[in-house]
């Protein structure tokens, strides 16, 4: 009885086939597939064509699981057991199609998700690599620009101190303005790449907020006036006189916002408003806002304007590289703030952010702030002796600028070398009061040379003040040069008064 019931279930799933030693089908119960008795089994399916290695197998059993067999229109996924018998081979074919199909669905999902995850990781890696390449390129490129720019800025400054007629003075003013634009563009591009590579750090110190706002009012008041625009600055009376933060980066944020506002406004007003949200303990929350009556931005482009190099098409004739708002966004995020925008096409744009800054007591802040120009002037005028200075610089434009700045003070005998390999010999054989050393030199690096000088066994020589000059503006580079033994590092392009201030700081009176 049980056998009969069992057959209803198992009988349909298992087929028995007997094949003789010649590979001919002798018997088949045809439960799953139809095998012609008397025909070679190799003709049934290629699977059986490859079983020649089983010749001679006796009383052994082999199992092949999950074999896809297609015989005529009949397709099943089966396990095949082959058992060696005296007269040939017994094949037991068990149909597991349903089970294997379910397994296939699971395997499909698993494999697809693994492959997808792998490809995402690879894609991310590729994007990161591209980003790194882009940043490296920008950093190298801006580094290369610093030398010629140093020459241009310095020579322009030197020229402006000479006797010029009105026309020459006008031309020089244009040149100065172009220099400033070029310098700020270079800083912006470098900032973008530094932010992207996480190398940008804030340098917080006390500064006079009103000075910063006055500078902006003066600069952009003139720019707006030249374009026939009205420029309004509205500041809260409760603004603290001094605040503590990264003055340069705040200046960069506001100049980018104001530059854009003036650039994209053809008529009407550009305004800068600074309000106090609240003051608590020694912190103040300030609300900065730049608004214009310009062309505005359509809602679908609101996000786009904050991406690097994504200047909207309709702005194409406006110049610039389209990184201003991207810098603003990145810098504010670094300062723990967020830029917000409201804009209507044809009506104008309002960009605003809140920024929390520390504000020190008036007396403390004042003592933290130096008036740089005066220091130099006082220091220089007090000296009556001449110093021997070694200038190690290979770029002719920078050489010329440095030469002129130093020679104009009439305090130096300057010797020049442009070859790193000769520096040590010069230092040992001469009694210099100070060395101005470029970092990137032919045949040697300035930091390496400094290191060697500091290790020299001659007291006076190894203590000579060394001021590094570099186009590598990253903090990590500057720290490395200081560790090598440089007393101070100045980045290119530099202002004349900053250079002199550093030089006189280390000269013995």
């Amino acid at each position, binding site marked *: 009885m049980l056998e009969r019931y069992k057959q209803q279930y198992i009988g349909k799933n298992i087929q028995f086939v007997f094949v003789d030693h010649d590979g001919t089908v002798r018997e088949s119960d045809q439960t799953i597939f139809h095998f012609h008795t008397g025909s070679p089994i*190799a003709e049934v*399916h*290629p*699977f059986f*064509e*490859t*079983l*020649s*290695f*089983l010749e001679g197998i006796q009383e052994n059993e*082999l*199992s*092949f*699981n*999950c*074999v*896809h067999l297609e015989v005529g229109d009949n397709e099943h*996924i089966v396990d095949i057991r082959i058992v060696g018998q005296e007269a040939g081979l017994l094949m037991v074919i068990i149909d597991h199609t349903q089970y*294997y199909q379910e*397994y*296939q669905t699971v*395997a*499909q999902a698993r*494999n*697809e998700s*693994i*492959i997808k995850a*792998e*490809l995402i990781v*690879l894609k991310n890696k590729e994007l990161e690599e591209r980003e790194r390449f882009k940043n490296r390129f920008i950093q190298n490129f801006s580094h290369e620009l610093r030398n010629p720019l140093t020459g241009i800025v310095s020579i322009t400054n030197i020229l402006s101190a000479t006797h010029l007629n009105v026309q020459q003075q006008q031309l020089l003013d244009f040149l100065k303005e172009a220099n400033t634009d070029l310098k700020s563009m270079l800083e912006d591009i470098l900032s973008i790449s530094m932010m992207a590579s996480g190398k940008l750090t804030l340098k917080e110190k006390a500064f006079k907020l009103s000075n910063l706002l006055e500078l902006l009012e003066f600069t952009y008041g003139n720019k707006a006036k030249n374009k026939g625009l009205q420029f309004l600055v509205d500041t809260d009376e409760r603004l603290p006189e001094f605040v503590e933060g990264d003055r340069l980066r705040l200046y960069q944020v506001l100049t980018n916002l104001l530059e854009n506002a003036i650039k994209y406004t053809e008529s009407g007003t550009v305004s800068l408003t600074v309000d106090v949200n609240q003051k608590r303990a020694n912190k103040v929350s300030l609300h900065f806002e730049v608004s214009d009556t310009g062309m505005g931005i359509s809602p679908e482009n609101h996000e786009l304007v904050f991406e690097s190099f994504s200047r909207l098409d309709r702005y194409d004739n406006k110049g610039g590289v389209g990184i201003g708002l991207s810098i603003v966004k990145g810098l504010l995020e670094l300062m723990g703030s967020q830029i917000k925008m409201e804009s209507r096409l044809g009506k104008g744009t309002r960009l605003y952010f809140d920024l929390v800054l520390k504000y020190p007591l008036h007396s403390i802040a004042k003592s933290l702030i130096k008036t740089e120009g005066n220091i130099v002037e006082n220091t220089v005028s007090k000296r009556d002796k001449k110093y021997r200075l070694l200038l190690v610089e290979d770029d002719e434009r920078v050489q010329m600028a440095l030469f002129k700045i130093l020679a104009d003070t009439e305090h130096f005998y300057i010797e020049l070398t442009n070859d790193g390999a000769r520096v040590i010999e010069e230092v040992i054989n001469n009694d210099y009061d100070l060395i101005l050393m470029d970092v990137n030199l032919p045949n040697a690096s300035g930091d390496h040379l400094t290191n060697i000088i500091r290790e020299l066994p001659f007291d006076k020589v190894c203590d000579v003040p060394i001021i590094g000059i570099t186009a590598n503006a990253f903090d990590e580079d500057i720290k490395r040069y200081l560790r090598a033994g440089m007393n101070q590092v100045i980045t290119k392009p530099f202002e004349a008064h900053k250079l002199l201030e550093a030089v006189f700081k280390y000269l013995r009176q």
Partner: protein
Amino acid sequence: MQKSKKIVILGHFGVGKTSLIRRFVKNSFSDKYKVTIGVHISKKVVGFGSGETISMILWDLEGTDDIRMIRNPYLLGTHGAFFVFDVNRPSTFQNIQEDLAVLSKKMPEVPLLIIGNKVDLVNQDDLNILLKENDISFDFLTSAKTGEWVEDAFLQMATLLKDA
């Protein structure tokens, strides 16, 4: 008399083993990925200039990320083998030397050809760098999608097995 030769196609999952066989046997291609479970067996008869033919029985084995897990009965009686990797997925070729060592232990003296597949998805320069950086030796770089070098790889195997 026509010889039958069993050829197994091995490699990690998703490298395009089934697509290579489909391209060679049916000269077709599908972008849709369907996981192979167990084994699919196909056949193609290849003729030579001498008039000689061999029947290539191609065992398309389920892909695995651990080559040691292949069921041994599948490999019994193998005459030739392909190891396929995906040039776009490092996980499929990162351990290629170990994988090949396992295979030569499981199938000593069986001719084995190495195929880097899906070259249509990668730039030739990037591919050269990748192969050099990973120190990968290969016999064929193929694309089942475009058919590039697919037939050549299988015919090379047929030639190797003709006189064996």
